[in-house]
């Protein structure tokens, strides 16, 4: 593949086939299709238990047009480490099925349950050991596959089946775990946030992650029409709003020789330059049924203020880190 442009990439065949059984309008396969458009050659994928895994591999069918290894919730990153170690060992000994390839890239896909909660230990270890793989977190902010239970990624006040909004508690009472900061603290070579509403940005960041030697991490926000309660055609619109409201800013973090640098990506940079274009959290929240208790029977100004203040604070801290 020559230059990474939408025109060139539109001709590259998908490495994930149609016929998967994800819900209509699911953002996960949009991200996966974009990520796989960024591959540069032979690639092995490992996938944690979750929506993506069950829906793409319902026996006897597979939607993956490349080698794919199933992992449990806990061990996606450990599987990725193992794949990379096996490739290295075969190459060193000049024997085994993988020894003849000059380059094989390793991708790991996992959801928020498999990353924030259950798979975290394996992930932290794999990054610390410095394996060469790219980890893609598909964050739909709850355990959607098992019936919308809250996870460490579920945001404050979102209603899920295990943090239902009622008379006393208005959805989840805790904040979203600051996973990005925790991952970045590992001083890994490359970290970025991605969003399907900006397809070329997703592809370019993924290619960067694959090109860089060592562990790289991509955090994708993945709106879920079933769990977040919105009509499926709005998937991309809501994804875009997450950036426009600065709830999920787009940025990259590079670590080179111990020096960490933050850089805002263009959709977020333009908001930083023209703060008046920043949308209120209300515009994002009111479109989603999981936050409907903040608007009905009357608008809960106190909660909305609290959420807005948290977003503003996090945004200003990020701007500081980016030197803006």
């Amino acid at each position, binding site marked *: 593949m020559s230059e990474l442009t939408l025109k060139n990439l539109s001709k590259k065949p998908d490495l994930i086939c*149609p016929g*998967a059984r994800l819900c*209509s*309008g699911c953002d*996960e396969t949009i991200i996966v299709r974009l990520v796989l458009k960024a591959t540069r050659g032979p690639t092995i994928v490992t996938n944690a238990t979750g929506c993506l895994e069950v829906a*793409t591999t319902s026996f*006897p069918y*597979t*939607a993956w047009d490349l080698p794919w290894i199933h992992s449990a919730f806990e061990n996606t990153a450990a599987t990725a480490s193992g794949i990379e170690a096996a490739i290295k060992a075969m190459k060193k000994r000049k024997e085994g099925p993988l020894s003849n390839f000059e380059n094989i890239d390793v991708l790991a896909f996992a959801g928020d349950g498999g990353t924030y909660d259950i798979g975290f230990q394996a992930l932290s270890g794999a990054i610390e050991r410095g394996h060469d793989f790219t980890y893609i977190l598909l964050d739909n902010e709850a355990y959607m596959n098992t019936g919308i239970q809250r996870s460490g990624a579920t945001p404050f006040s979102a209603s899920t089946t295990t943090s239902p909004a009622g008379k006393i508690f208005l959805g989840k009472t805790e904040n979203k775990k600051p996973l990005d900061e925790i991952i970045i603290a590992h001083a890994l070579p490359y970290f970025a946030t991605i969003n399907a509403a900006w*397809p070329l940005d997703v592809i370019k960041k993924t290619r960067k992650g694959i090109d860089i030697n060592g562990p790289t991490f991509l955090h994708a926000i993945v709106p879920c029409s079933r769990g977040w309660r919105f009509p499926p055609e709005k998937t991309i619109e809501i994804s875009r709003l997450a950036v426009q409201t600065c709830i999920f800013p787009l940025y990259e973090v590079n670590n080179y020789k111990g020096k960490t640098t933050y850089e805002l990506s263009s959709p977020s940079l333009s908001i930083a330059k023209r703060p008046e274009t920043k949308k209120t959290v209300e515009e994002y929240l009111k479109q989603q049924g999981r936050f409907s208790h903040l608007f009905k029977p009357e608008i809960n100004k106190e909660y909305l203020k609290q959420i807005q203040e948290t977003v503003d604070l996090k945004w200003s801290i990020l701007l500081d880190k980016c030197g803006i």
Partner: protein
Amino acid sequence: MSKLKKKSELEPGAIPFKSSKEYETGDWGITYPKIDYNKCTKCTLCHFFCPEGAINVREDGYTEVDYRYCKGCGICSHECPVKCIEMIVKK
């Protein structure tokens, strides 16, 4: 329908599978998209946004829906910059 490979024909540890392309999801939706080629600007965005990979780009640069797999989610229609994709209710 293709046949599944026998275990003995595979590498150790591998499981016989067939491509999900044989599992057509085109009957999931209650609506289907129709592209108005008089207005389409060949931007190809709908190809990138379709969760199913059911929108292909033709030789002439126009996009085309593969109705065997379209689930009728409506994202393509909602996101098309020139609004030239109409969602039509199936009869």
